[in-house]
């Protein structure tokens, strides 16, 4: 599998013995709504198997934290932030608050998460599609429904980090890729912060009329969340509580921090088609 991924980066494998080549223009979509994915009581959750393992509670993989099952029956879904929600709901960091901040950032044009897909020859099946995750900047126009209009033109935000992923593919009308990193601003407790999502995965599915739906999953370093709790204007009791909760709920390895030092999270989004300015 890793050999295939490496091969795709150089001269991606088309799966039919050829190499990736496409004259298709890149397609840009910009996120217009985003929300946390919360697992239901039956243990079902949308998301990704980020660590490649199907973990059970107390087991040897996944830091001993049990995974979810997707509504489609896929096992090993990592979305452990979902388990923090009941705790957060007892504080000021309610889910609605987090989502509200993110949405207002989108509507004001401060958070225009961009997914640029390269080499899409077919939205049915395409074995070799690249993805560039970054942020767009510009005056965001909202429709009469209060949502970002599709078809807008933006500039790439030069100050935002860009993640390139070359292992994407489209299967049965849905694009998926891994190795994504991006930053999502949020408000947790009293702290305004930027959630660094690392080792993430993205799926994008066209809905017609220039609209797209998708999921963004990844790991947030627990040390980052802990440092925020310790340094920002957060009630010390709550900060201590958060530290305890985080230490028990980290379910992913972090590339910098080590084993079981990241918390998996899944965000559901919908996005609209957009363009870059030509110059």
């Amino acid at each position, binding site marked *: 599998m890793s050999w295939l991924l490496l091969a795709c980066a150089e001269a991606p494998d088309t799966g039919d013995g050829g190499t990736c080549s496409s004259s298709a223009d890149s397609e840009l979509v910009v996120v217009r709504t985003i929300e946390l994915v919360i697992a239901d009581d039956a243990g079902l959750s949308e998301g990704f198997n980020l660590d490649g393992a199907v973990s059970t509670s107390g087991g040897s993989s996944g830091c001993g934290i049990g995974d979810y099952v997707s509504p489609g029956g896929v096992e090993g879904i990592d979305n452990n932030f979902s388990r923090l929600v009941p705790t957060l709901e007892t504080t000021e960091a309610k889910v609605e608050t987090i989502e509200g901040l993110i949405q207002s950032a989108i509507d004001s044009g401060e958070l225009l998460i961009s997914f640029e897909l390269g080499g899409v020859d077919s939205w049915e099946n395409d074995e070799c599609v690249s993805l560039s995750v970054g942020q767009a900047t*510009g*005056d965001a*126009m909202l*429709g*009469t*429904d209060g*949502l970002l*209009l*599709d*078809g*807008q*033109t933006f*500039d790439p935000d030069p100050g935002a980090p860009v993640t390139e992923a070359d292992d994407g593919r489209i299967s049965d009308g849905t694009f998926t890729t891994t190795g994504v990193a991006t930053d999502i601003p949020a408000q947790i407790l009293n702290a305004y912060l930027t959630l660094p999502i690392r080792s993430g995965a993205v799926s994008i599915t066209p809905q017609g*009329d*220039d609209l797209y739906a998708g999921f963004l999953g990844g790991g947030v370093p627990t040390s980052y969340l802990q440092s925020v709790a310790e340094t920002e204007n957060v009630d010390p009791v709550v900060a201590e509580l958060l530290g305890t909760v985080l230490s028990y709920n980290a379910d992913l390895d972090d590339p910098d921090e080590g084993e079981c030092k990241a918390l998996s999270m899944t965000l559901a989004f919908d996005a609209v*088609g957009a*363009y*870059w*300015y*030509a110059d």
Partner: protein
Amino acid sequence: MTPVAVPYSAVPLALLLLACDPAPDRAAPEAVRGEAPAFTAQPPVLRRLTYAQYQSTVAALFGEGLVIPAELEPDTRVSGLYAVGASVTSISSLGVERYEADAFDIAEQVLADESRRSALVPCTPASTIDSDCARAVLADLGPRAWRRPLESDELDRLVGIADTAAATLDDFDQGLAYALAALLQSPHFLFRPEPGEDDPERPGERRYTAYEMASRLSYFLWNTMPDAELFAAAADGSLLTTEGLAAQVDRLLADERAREGMAAFITDTWMLSDLDDLTKDPAIYTYMSDGLGASARQQTLLDAEAIVFDDDGDFRSILTTRATHLDRTLAALYDVPAPAREGFGATTLPESGGRRGLLGQVSFLALQSHATSTSVTRRGIFVREVLLCQALPSPPAGLNTSIPETTEETPTMRDRVAQHLEDPSCAACHNYMDPIGLGFENFDGIGRWRTTENEVEIDASGDLDGVDFDDAWALSAAIADHSAFAPCVNKTLYAYAQGRVGGEGEDDIVDWHAEGFAVEDYRLKFLLRDIATGQAFRTAGVAE
């Protein structure tokens, strides 16, 4: 003079021969169409300044930036044009009050602004009542405002108003304000009298006077009052000579203000001022915004300006070109990259898209739709009446002309129109326009491209007077090539220039201009010049 008859079929041949020469010397239009035919001069009309002309004239007199109330006597569209309506409308009693109030308001603004006042008042009043100073102001402003020299008694009366008001109000400027207001609410300012005079060179014929010609030209080509040079050409009489007229027309057309004039014609003929009142249901059309109508109008005008003045190209391409001008709002609605971060930029629409020319623009698609849906009837009527100059009968009184509601059996507009046309009393007329409107059904009621309606694929095919089309683009091309389109442009421009539709005995001269338009590759700039220098534009009939 008897015109030389040239078969119309010779025109394409001539064009073909010209096209063979890599650097053709264009044949003079008269070599193909002959001399102008005889015509019957029509009685002069009395045109009231349109609201746009009122604005531009006040700006020309006193400078830009004055606040002019929007609520004046409304313009009236007659035969599809405000320019024609201006000749047949009068002023209501309410309108008189509005013009009066507006005149005083403008006068006060002018005199309260030191730079405007100093440009207007060349003297320092010696006392509250200073007849000489008032006379100096009014002797300069009066002829420009009324666009002709003032009779001495007219000037005396205006000075008398200034003096009397100054004495009453004990203030020179307030007295002058009354005189300015008198100038601006006078019929000589608000209307354009053109009684004409006997033509000494053509006994038995009448012509417009030099000052009448100055106004005819400036309002036709600039949509505003004459400038100093045009007044000078009127004063020395050169405007009444063929050479002098041609020189002024060429000068006017070379001036930037000609773009404003052409924009006024386009705005009038394609009803673009209606975009100010564009209304759409925001629950249905999420792209609706306060500025959409203005953006749409600007797009159409910039495109027309590019064809007419920047390229001096075939005007028919306004219906088929992919070259356009967009701002961010329209680019998003059209789902194409915006060419500019601020304002408008030039761009080319994708070849693969179905959007081309005027009929792919919001200024047509949204304006000729309902607030909650498309309207195949309104779109069809616009094509028939405005673009092809084909008269359609009004529906009989009491006839229900509404299209049936959407049902499971009639998911698309084509289905609903078919049901509608089952009624023979509807079909008689709607068969003439609705099939055209169906050709634009890939655009929703605000102008967004769509391929389905109620999840059923849209069929935008049809035929226009025997020419099959598959989609809106092919339909636009068919309209551009329609034998009635270019003559309709000519006919409308002629009516716009004259302030009336062509009258009895004018058909040949109107057709003659159309022939010249065709010979000159449908360049609108040529047609503007052709009409402005034409004998029919200079010849006054006898007042009825």
